[in-house]
């Protein structure tokens, strides 16, 4: 959506053909002799050495998993071992030209990639740099283990290799000295100082995250390229397509400002080992036949797609060299179909029922460990002895590190007896960082000149004045509060970006961002494709790399489309990295109203269920601004729920008005919105206003004084205020717009029961929406909790109210009946 882009019917209706360029397939045809000009003997041998180290590393894992010993040393490892034996040449070839500023994101099968990348970085980095990194990693804990155990004790590079292999192996074996304290394990090993970003156990999971990392590099003008390494099976996953599409958005060329123009600096590399677990992508589960073909479906540049021979390290190096150049010319994204083959099973439990011995033997015959060696020997680059020495050294290296990594006294696991809350402590980073970078903020106009800022200045910052409601148009609304907080941060944190569907120009579907366009260049504020997975996934990558980001799902109902990105990625990387990574992401999600079954669901509880997410649901302008400020100051992922029912509501509780200046409301602290003494009503989100209505009726009609507590946050949540209230009243009703079954309110109710059992005069009662679809707007009052539901529930389950005639059925028989029916 942009007025600068004219959609011309003449053009749109013109007859013609889409033409394609030829897509190169294994076009590398140089001999090793040809390459002697480009590689020294050391280079050639180092390529072979890296392949050999990877091969030995993985053979060790394979042996341990299948025989419970390695080189006669018993060890039982039961964790995952998705090995890439046979794929070493493609990994080493890819990494050969990459340095620490180039980021790779991998899959469950990425041990080889990370070792190759580390070897390449170690080769390129100075001794000082390496020492610095080693000393700073967990205060030198890893370094201490390997220090002095090298053949050449003067070689920092040798030390760094030991350091990396040990850190990676300890991680795979779940040891405290692992790069993620053993919390990441085999499928999630990473080491960011070498530009190795988390591998991902969700097939294709890395694609949108890597795209976000590329976005980070582009927006923040950082050096380097990003490579998304996933398998060919990942092309069956929507988020991978979403990521490629978003990386190739036209606006990078058409709308983004000079200096930011051009596609994202990313290679979507597919290690095409022919199988998605056992499903054969070529011929069985896909239709592309040649993976590289798919580039033609994304953009006119066909993603510069190419099939390359991953069994020849030199062919891969050649491809990366050319693609890197394309990216440096702002011509990304790139698609690479790196043909390879794994010589062992998907995992040690793979019975290999899906391929023949002939096929396996045919690939073993071209195993690069042999073919590349033969080429080196035949070309007179290395002698057989030199090759044998490399293999022997690799074996010694892995054995040495193996002994260190499995020794419980040297490599203990995190001590959850001594520090029972170790993992709890890394679930959130809980830091306060005002800005993620110090440079100036890139904005178009001074903040005070922003038209929306000017408009808000004239608004009345309370919803009631002199006992009379302020008109909607004059009131400072909840949407203004969210806007005010976010625009403020845009002028504070230069890394902050925001995007989502219809954010720019439209101003967000519900007007929250109205006016933001005027202040911000495209590279800080843009429209995304309708790709919820890519929206959230890219935010994860953007934040992992050090940026702050606010992304939006237009409706909470669309969360399903971003399920993996919210539940497995956004929520987990801080803790899976043992606190090494931060995740300053605010995920705004609006709960619909009036829009029926697929656009009106409050899914707060689903987010609350996932460890690692902070979940808030403010219901007043004062709270919305204060909580958004806190979310934007923090380093944790915050799911920020908004209700379309109350975007236009004014401040009815904080009668001093919503402050114009900056203030914070701590996440996790509920708020007493109205004091009372007879019964407590705890609400989440907009149900606050139904509670207020109920309290009015209780007070005026029945002389019952209700205390209303607005949860404001769902995760974390401080029960102290609620318990104090229950101590006073002995009675509590919990209400929200979420369907009653599985609602987080049930958790609240259970905890309140446990924490204040002796003070309770009745079990806490949950009043949720019906376990139905959300009906048409006109029928919503039969679906969402209403004031009379709350009163009826009190009457029926807590304290019969003299003179009250209930209209809703809250009896136990009805409760049992409905549960039996599952509604």
């Amino acid at each position: 959506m942009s007025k600068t882009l004219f959609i011309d019917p003449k053009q749109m209706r013109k007859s013609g053909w889409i033409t394609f360029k030829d897509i190169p397939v294994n076009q590398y045809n140089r001999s090793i002799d040809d390459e002697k000009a480009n590689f020294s003997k050391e280079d050639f041998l180092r390529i072979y050495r890296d392949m050999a180290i990877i091969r030995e590393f993985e053979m060790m894992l394979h042996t341990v998993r299948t025989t419970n010993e390695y080189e006669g040393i018993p060890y039982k490892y039961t964790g995952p071992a998705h090995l890439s034996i046979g794929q070493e040449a493609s990994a080493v070839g890819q990494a050969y030209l990459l340095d620490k500023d180039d980021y790779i994101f991998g899959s469950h099968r990425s041990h080889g990639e990370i070792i190759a990348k580390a070897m390449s970085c170690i080769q390129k980095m100075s001794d000082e740099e390496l020492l610095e990194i080693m000393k700073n990693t967990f205060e030198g804990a890893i370094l201490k283990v390997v220090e002095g155990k090298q053949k050449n004790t003067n070689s920092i590079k040798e030390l760094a290799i030991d350091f990396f292999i040990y850190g990676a192996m300890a991680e795979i074996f779940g040891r405290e000295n692992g790069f993620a304290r053993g919390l990441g394990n085999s499928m999630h090993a990473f080491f960011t100082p070498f530009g190795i970003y988390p591998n991902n156990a969700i097939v294709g999971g890395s694609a949108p995250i890597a795209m976000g990392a590329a976005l980070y590099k582009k927006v923040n003008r950082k050096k380097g390229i990003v490579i998304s390494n996933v398998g060919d099976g990942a092309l069956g996953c929507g988020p991978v397509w979403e990521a490629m599409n978003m990386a190739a958005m036209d606006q990078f060329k058409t709308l983004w400002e000079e200096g930011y123009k051009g596609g994202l600096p990313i290679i979507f590399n597919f290690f095409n080992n022919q199988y998605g677990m056992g499903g054969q992508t070529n011929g069985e589960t896909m239709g592309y036949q040649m993976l590289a073909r798919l580039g033609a479906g994304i953009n006119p540049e066909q993603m510069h797609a190419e099939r390359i021979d991953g069994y020849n390290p030199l062919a891969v190096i050649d491809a990366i060299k050319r693609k890197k150049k394309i990216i440096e010319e702002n011509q990304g994204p790139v698609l690479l179909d790196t043909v390879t083959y794994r010589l062992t099973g998907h995992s040690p439990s793979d019975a290999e029922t899906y391929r023949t011995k002939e096929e396996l033997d045919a690939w073993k015959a071209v195993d690069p460990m042999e073919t590349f060696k033969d080429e080196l020997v035949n070309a007179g680059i290395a002698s057989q002895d030199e090759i044998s020495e490399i293999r022997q050294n690799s074996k010694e290296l892995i054995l040495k590190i193996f002994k260190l990594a499995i020794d419980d006294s040297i490599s203990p696991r995190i001590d959850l007896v001594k520090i029972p809350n170790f993992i709890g402590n890394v679930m959130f980073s809980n830091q306060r960082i005002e800005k993620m970078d110090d440079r100036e903020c890139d904005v178009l106009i001074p903040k005070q000149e922003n038209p929306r800022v000017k408009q808000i200045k004239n608004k009345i910052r309370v919803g009631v004045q002199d006992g009379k409601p302020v008109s909607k148009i004059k009131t400072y609304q909840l949407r203004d509060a969210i806007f005010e907080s976010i625009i403020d941060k845009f002028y504070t944190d230069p890394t902050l970006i925001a995007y989502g569907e219809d954010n720019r120009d439209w101003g967000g579907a519900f007007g929250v961002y109205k006016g933001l366009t005027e202040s911000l260049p495209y590279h800080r504020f843009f429209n995304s494709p309708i790709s919820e997975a890519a929206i959230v996934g890219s935010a994860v990558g953007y934040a992992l790399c050090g940026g702050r980001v606010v992304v939006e799902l237009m409706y909470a109902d669309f969360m399903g489309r971003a399920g993996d990105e919210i539940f497995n990625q956004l929520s987990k990387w801080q803790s899976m990295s043992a606190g090494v990574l931060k995740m300053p992401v605010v995920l705004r999600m609006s709960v619909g109203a009036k829009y029926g079954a697929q656009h009106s669901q409050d899914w707060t509880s689903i987010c609350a269920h996932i460890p690692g997410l902070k979940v808030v649901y403010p219901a007043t302008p004062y709270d919305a601004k204060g909580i958004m400020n806190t979310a934007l100051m923090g380093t944790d992922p915050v799911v920020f729920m908004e209700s379309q029912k109350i975007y236009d509501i004014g401040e009815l509780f904080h009668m001093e008005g919503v402050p114009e200046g900056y203030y914070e409301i701590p996440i996790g602290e509920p708020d007493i919105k109205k004091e009372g003494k007879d019964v407590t009503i705890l609400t989440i989100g907009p149900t606050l206003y139904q509670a207020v209505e109920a309290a009015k009726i209780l007070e005026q009609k029945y002389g019952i004084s209700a205390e209303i507590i607005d949860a404001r946050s769902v995760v974390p949540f401080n029960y102290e205020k609620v318990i104090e209230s229950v101590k006073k009243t002995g009675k509590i009703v919990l209400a929200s717009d979420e369907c009653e079954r599985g609602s987080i309110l049930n958790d609240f109710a259970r905890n309140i029961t446990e924490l204040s059992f002796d003070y309770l005069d009745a079990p806490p009662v949950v009043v949720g929406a019906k376990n139905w679809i959300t009906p048409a707007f006109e029928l919503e009052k039969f679906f969402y909790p209403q004031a009379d539901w709350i009163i009826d529930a009190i009457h029926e389950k807590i304290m019969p109210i003299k003179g009250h005639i209930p209209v809703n059925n809250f009896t136990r028989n009805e409760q049992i009946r409905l549960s039996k029916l599952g509604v």
Partner: protein
Amino acid sequence: MATLVKMPKIGLSDESAIIAKWHKKKGEQVKAGEVLFTIETDKSTFDVEAEVDGTLLDVFFNEGDEVPVLTDVGVIGSEGEDISSITIARGKPESQAATQRLQIPEDSIELEVPSKEKIEKAYPDLAEAEESGIIKISPRARNLAERAGVDFRFTSPTGPEGRIIERDILALIEKGPVFTPAAKEEYQKSDMDLQVSEGTGLGGRITTGDLQKNSEEQKVEKEASMAAKGLEKQETAQKSVIEAPQQALQYKEVKFTNIRKVIARNMMNSLSTTAQLTHHATFDATEILAYREKIKATGKKYGLENITLNDMVLYAVSKTLLNHPDLNAHLVGETMMVFENVHLGVAIDTERGLMVPTIFNANLKSLNEISREVKELAEQCRKGSINPDYLKGGTFTVTNLGPLDVEHFTPILNPPQTGILGICSITYKPRRVNGQYEYYPAMGLSLTFDHRAVDGAPAARFLKDLKTNLENFSLLLAR
């Protein structure tokens, strides 16, 4: 075919009654019309007769048990008949006891607490819960009961599904026996029946002292013959006191009857909750004495009752009260309920104790009607057959100690009524007429009134009006 015997429902608002005595034992033969058992409500005593012939095969409650009305209390059938198949709506004495306290209405307005019947109607599961023997109580209510020292079994649950909730305990604290924590502990440890109606502790809390007394009383009762010999025990227990033991044993313990308990409670309640005081006056009874003589001589001929001086005072009071509406009223909280008609409570002395039946609309009745009604009511009270509905609803009470030669006394108000008139004996007083002293029969009137409702002068004016009306009784009759 066995027949179940039910606890009858006598008063309209009766919820339960106590089985005072079984006249037949289990296994004994009964005939229709024979007295089977006697029950006591809080206001009277009734004999319940067997309705069929047969053998009393089983009784489900013991003497002293409180039983909800319409509950089966026993079964009559042929000897040896198998009654195991009969489903019996047995109540549990334990849990029924819980309702006891609150069901002694203090003749005040209806308690806010819904009746058990109402709760049962609203929450059909209640009966089921009670049958399972579980007392449902919220933790909060239990804690409050614990802290306040009340026994929650004495409360009427008003929560969902028959659960005792906080407000029930608050009601109990207001009305029922409240223990000090120590006493509560002791009470729970012991198996004693609680007989203490008023505690001596702070705010009327029952103390360990009260309990000891209670328990001693029970002990004495149980071991009546041991009493005299119990000396040694007492001596060892109280060595330092030299004289006390012997004297302490020289009384007989008599348990309060149910009626006595109610009277005691009502009296204490009256004194502790009202601002009552008494005016005394006398009037010249010459005319009413003359009228009485006339009735004696010729009343029968006119078909009149044996109209007594008491009846005449009642009549005069009923005709005078409406001019003094504040004395024909109930004071509830800070609200006066001023009645349109006079419903005259008449104190009747019975063997079981004081009872106060009501002559409804007395102001609309003739002297003869009043006289007849009083006699009937008094008779029913003495027999114990009075319908309890006649034992409430009074708007003013008259009590008469004149025949017992009491010259002045201070009647105790019957709250929420605002006045009670005591009739005293006739004495002869001198008065000076035309320089000469003459004696005239002076009858005493003692008016106790609630100063919260009525000030001294208006109360005196009522007495004065009454006096005038009585001294000019024939004129009053003509009105």
